[in-house]
């Protein structure tokens, strides 16, 4: 029996046994879709973490001089306590570094704490108050939607002006323009000079609930003791320059703190690399676990298909017996079933690819994850999906094809 004849028979069966074929098709479809979809999500999480997350917290080519790292997953208590005992970063440290650096950089001071901000009888609670210097906006990539950032003049003189995060402006002013009104931060009136563009959220954390005020303005007492900083930001023009600046800053800090060569730093120069390394680790786990999950789902899908095939196998066994009694050889039977399940698997895989890509586009549209289809996941999905589909379809047939025609025909 030529191949196209087998294909014709297969199509005939698919047409006449729509339900069974539909279920098998669904099995392959779900397997392929979930594989492509989950790889896309993994990709998206990965890019989200390395690009957006890291850069939102740190900025590009930027490092922070801090008492302890920003991002501290799984740190034992003892380490944490030793970090807390370290000296804090002082205004004077920041000034000394700014003066001594030979690399062109821009810098900003930053101290933050949570406060309430009020306007009239409206109150926004749990707002991150950041006392910063004027380049902070630039370094953190905070674009101003209306108004302006505060100036270096205002920063140096400690003028009580405030730039609001989008959520704070909406909460306090609803639809009214907030500019030139005064909000109260810790009881001190601050004139609103600008509102930052909507940022959205990061892993579910809202990014718009903040107020930025000049580092030397009166509210500085709310965030840190006098002369103390949470972080000193340094942004260089390139990665190489950033590393140069980091080396210089490290030397300056060590000498200011009189550290001997064998002593460890009692401060950190934190970059997005730490976060990225952490996420690379997570991603590696994700990438080893995910295929397992997907393989399990495909195997389950395969078992479902095989069960459906086996359920229908009494009927199919009689059919196989009949065909054999009419002169079909074992290989004719196998060819027919191969063509049948290959067709099912191919159609299922094709729809699966389309749905997987569609899912990726959907995730891109409705979530912040920059999900993207990885070609290798498509290849793997197609090979596995069709492989499982074909095996699940052919295996029951090989068993039936080995029987004597009369034994197969007698099957109840």
């Amino acid at each position, binding site marked *: *029996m*030529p191949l196209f004849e087998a294909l014709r028979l297969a199509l005939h069966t698919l047409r006449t046994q729509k339900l069974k074929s539909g279920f098998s098709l669904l099995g392959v479809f779900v397997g392929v879709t979930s594989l492509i979809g989950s790889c896309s999500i993994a990709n998206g999480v990965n890019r989200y973490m390395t690009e957006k997350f890291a850069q939102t917290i740190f900025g590009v080519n930027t490092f922070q001089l801090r008492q302890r790292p920003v991002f501290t997953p799984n740190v034992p208590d003892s380490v944490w306590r030793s970090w807390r005992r370290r000296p804090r970063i002082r205004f004077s440290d920041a000034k000394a570094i700014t003066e001594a650096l030979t690399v062109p950089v821009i810098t900003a001071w930053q101290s933050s704490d949570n406060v309430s901000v009020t306007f009239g009888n409206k109150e926004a609670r749990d707002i991150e108050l950041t006392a910063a210097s004027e380049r902070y906006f630039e370094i953190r990539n905070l674009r101003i939607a209306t108004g302006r950032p505060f100036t270096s003049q205002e920063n140096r003189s400690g003028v009580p002006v405030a730039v609001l995060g989008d959520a704070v402006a909406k909460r306090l002013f609803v639809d009214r323009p907030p500019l030139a009104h005064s909000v109260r931060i810790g009881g001190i009136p601050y004139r609103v000079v600008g509102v930052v563009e909507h940022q959205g959220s990061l892993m579910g954390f809202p990014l718009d609930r903040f107020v930025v005020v000049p580092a030397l303005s009166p509210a500085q007492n709310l965030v840190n003791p006098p002369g103390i900083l949470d972080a000193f930001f340094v942004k260089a023009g390139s990665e190489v320059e950033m590393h140069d600046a980091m080396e210089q800053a490290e030397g300056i800090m060590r000498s200011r703190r009189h550290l001997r060569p064998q002593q460890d730093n009692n401060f950190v120069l934190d970059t997005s690399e730490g976060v990225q390394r952490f996420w690379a680790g997570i991603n590696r786990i994700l990438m080893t676990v995910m295929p397992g999950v997907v393989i399990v789902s495909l195997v389950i899908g395969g078992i479902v298909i095989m069960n459906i095939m086996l359920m229908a196998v009494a009927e199919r066994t009689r*059919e196989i017996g009949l*065909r054999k009694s009419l*002169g079909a050889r074992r*290989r004719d039977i196998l060819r027919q079933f191969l063509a049948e399940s290959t067709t099912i698997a191919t159609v299922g895989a094709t729809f699966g690819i389309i749905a997987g890509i569609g899912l990726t586009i959907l995730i891109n549209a409705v979530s912040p994850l920059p999900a993207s289809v990885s070609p290798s996941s498509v290849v793997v999905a197609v090979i596995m999906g069709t492989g499982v589909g074909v095996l699940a379809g052919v295996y029951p047939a090989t068993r039936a094809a080995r029987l004597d*025609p*009369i034994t197969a025909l007698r099957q109840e």
Partner: protein
Amino acid sequence: MSNVQLFRTGDTPLPDVIILTHKLTREYDMGSELVRALRGVSVQIQRNEYVAVMGPSGSGKSTLMNLIGCLDTPTSGEYWLNGQKVSDLADDELARIRNKEIGFVFQTFNLLPRADALHNVELPLIYAGMSARGRRERAAHALQRVGLGDRMDHKPNELSGGQRQRVAIARALVNEPSILLADEPTGNLDSTTSTEIMGVFAELHRQGQTVVMVTHEQDIAANAARVITLRDGLVATDQARAA
């Protein structure tokens, strides 16, 4: 029928002997017991004979027919079909024999339920490797021969029992087999329809077809020119009917 005794292991049947079984046995190993369905059956059937096989239930009629139809393989003994010893052929060769030499009509019709009459009749031609167009012509012709020229696109469940059996006969005939085998072809039919089907068989026999048919009923067997009776897996009687 004296030539039955003349055949010995190692011999070759005479040219016009189309079916020859020699000490054919078929045993079923049921674990606890051994069922000896056939215990050494030797029969010879000539070209263009019309033979009825009779005997009580469980005497081995179906077992013998399945062996003759190459649907089953014997435990021991020889089976020669058309001058070829088929009792020790491999699976694929048996498939070819079933396809080319044998037309088998079952009591329960055994049609593909979701395929129409034409496709059902076409099946043997597919495995004979015939082109689609040639197949359709041949299948249509076979259906016309059994009087179903106007029911070709009907599914089995859209046909009466007698019509289904006619489709099955058309399918058995479509490859122009050397023998037409039928295991209680009228077992599921009422007496009028049975008579009709017997008419079809008689006509085929008249056209030169060799027919072997199992039946329980005396008046069905009366259509045949020779009756072989089995009892307990052995041939009990084998006689030509007085016409």
